[in-house]
């Protein structure tokens, strides 16, 4: 199991930040997932070994956090917020629009593996609602037309 040099440097540094190894677990899981695409059995085994935990202990932590996943997602994970502030400004309609455009539902992935869709809870963009995140990028004050543009841009990225 190999991670990038950047990952390894960050991981070694993080271990010096805490009195216990496992304290680095939550951020490390997310960084590992970003590199591998999901928290595969292999990743879990490797991180458990490094942190002196059982695989079960690692899985137990993974299942608590909504951003962590053991199943691969599309290259671009489209996360549409429908919580109260977004709902009042069309968040649900936006989600429905994305479902139609991508042809997938909540937690679905397009057959080409390019997009996943997720209805998410508040992402902290309430004053700029409705909002969505594609991977870690925020897109705010969205309309259906703006969302189309955003999705097209991500779709085109791959062709270059």
């Amino acid at each position, binding site marked *: 199991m190999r991670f990038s040099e950047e990952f390894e440097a960050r991981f070694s540094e993080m271990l010096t930040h805490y009195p216990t190894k496992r304290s680095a677990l939550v951020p490390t899981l997310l960084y590992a997932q970003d590199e591998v695409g999901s928290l595969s059995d292999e990743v879990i085994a490797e991180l458990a070994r490094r942190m002196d935990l059982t695989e079960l202990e690692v899985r137990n932590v993974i299942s608590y956090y909504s951003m962590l996943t053991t199943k691969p997602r599309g290259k671009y994970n489209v996360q549409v917020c429908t919580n109260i*502030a977004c709902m009042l400004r069309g968040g649900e309609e936006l989600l429905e629009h994305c479902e139609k455009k991508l042809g997938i539902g909540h937690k679905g992935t397009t057959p080409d593996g390019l997009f996943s869709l997720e209805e998410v809870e508040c992402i902290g963009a309430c004053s700029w609602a409705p909002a969505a995140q594609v991977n870690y990028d925020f897109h705010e004050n969205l309309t259906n037309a703006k969302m189309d543009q955003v999705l097209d841009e991500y779709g085109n990225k791959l062709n270059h």
Partner: protein
Amino acid sequence: MASLVSHPDEVRVISKRFGQGATNIDRYLELDGYKAVQKALAMQPDAIINEVKNSGLRGRGGAGFSTGMKWSFVPKQSAKPKYVLCNGDESEPGTCKDRLIFEHDPHAVIEGVMIAALAVGAHTGYIYVRGEYRYLLVIMQKALKDAYAKGILGKNIFGSGYDLDIYWHGGAGAYEVGEESALMESLEGKRGIPRIRPPFPAIVGLWGGPTVINNVETLAAVPHIIMGGADWYSKLGTPKNGGTRLFCLAGNLNKPGVYELPMGYNLKKMIYEVGGGIPNGRSLKAVVPGGSSTPVLLPEEIDVAMDFDSVAKTGSMLGSGGVVVLDDTACIVKFALRTMKFYRHESCGWCIPCREGTDWLEKTLIRFHSGGGVKKDIDNMYYLSENMLGKTFCPLGDAAAMPTMAFVKKFRKEFEDHLDGRPCPFEKEGAPQQHAVMAH
């Protein structure tokens, strides 16, 4: 990147450096950065605590507890190391203020943590940034690195002989981790299950050591208090509610945005003048004054000073500063349902009243909103919520129950209008239906 707004009534303390390029450490220093920590280094720890106490600064995460008082609970002598933990797991629906502080003034957060550490005698601090805020974690990582490179953090800070380390930490998506004991569990690499209190974190916190936990905005206010003085800061607000606050105006408003206003600013004015009023000629139906956990206010209740004590008198709470405005096209039953869907999704399941209560309430509200409600559901929802109050390790159960009780109590007629199989009176044709259950 979130866009900035402005209004003439704003009093810029926390947001003074927004849009000024202060993520750059040299620019931050130019704008009087890291002067407060040097001033604090010359003060006795008790003098720092007293200054913060006298400033009337109260927890901006939502609970509104006196910050200086919180610091004073940390024992002077401790066999175990002491810690300062900055809570940047902002996720209360309606709230998006810490995001701006991290984005525009990360060094102010670091400086606030430093001063808190000096006040309680801690040599280690952590800044926890929610997982979704990756770009802000990157900003914070660089800010910390730059502070170390300049010798502002590390050994012997400013030649004082005091060693101080501050580290970043990233979350991975969990509302409940914004609760202080769950936050510590998360930082220790575990599920964010809350701890029973007492003992409080000030006595037994991170890895068993005394720990001060403060919100990002609270800590970002501290350097300004040290520089400007308790007297100046307290006078910006109302009695016992010192300073200013970042209010996140959201929902059906012409000019939503994050505005820094004095504590005690009138809510009605905030909605109609600062927020530009209700769009499309609609009228005001209700306001959630401080994030989704706070009980809803009716239009006749909004002539209120937005400080902790005045809002408490209305039976609601100032909360986290997230003001969500509903116009008269909004369906309260649907709004209550979406609120409950959130709490059901975020409940960790540790405490039965919260785990079962949020699930039952969500199911009842889904059925009710789709026309399958019966009259006794209305009282049952209130009764169920009432029985969740105060019966859980962390306040998530209360946070779900309190708004539900207010929705039922204040909008009973609207609940009744959904009875007898009638379609929701507010549903627009072809509107998407609420998904029955969102997968965990």
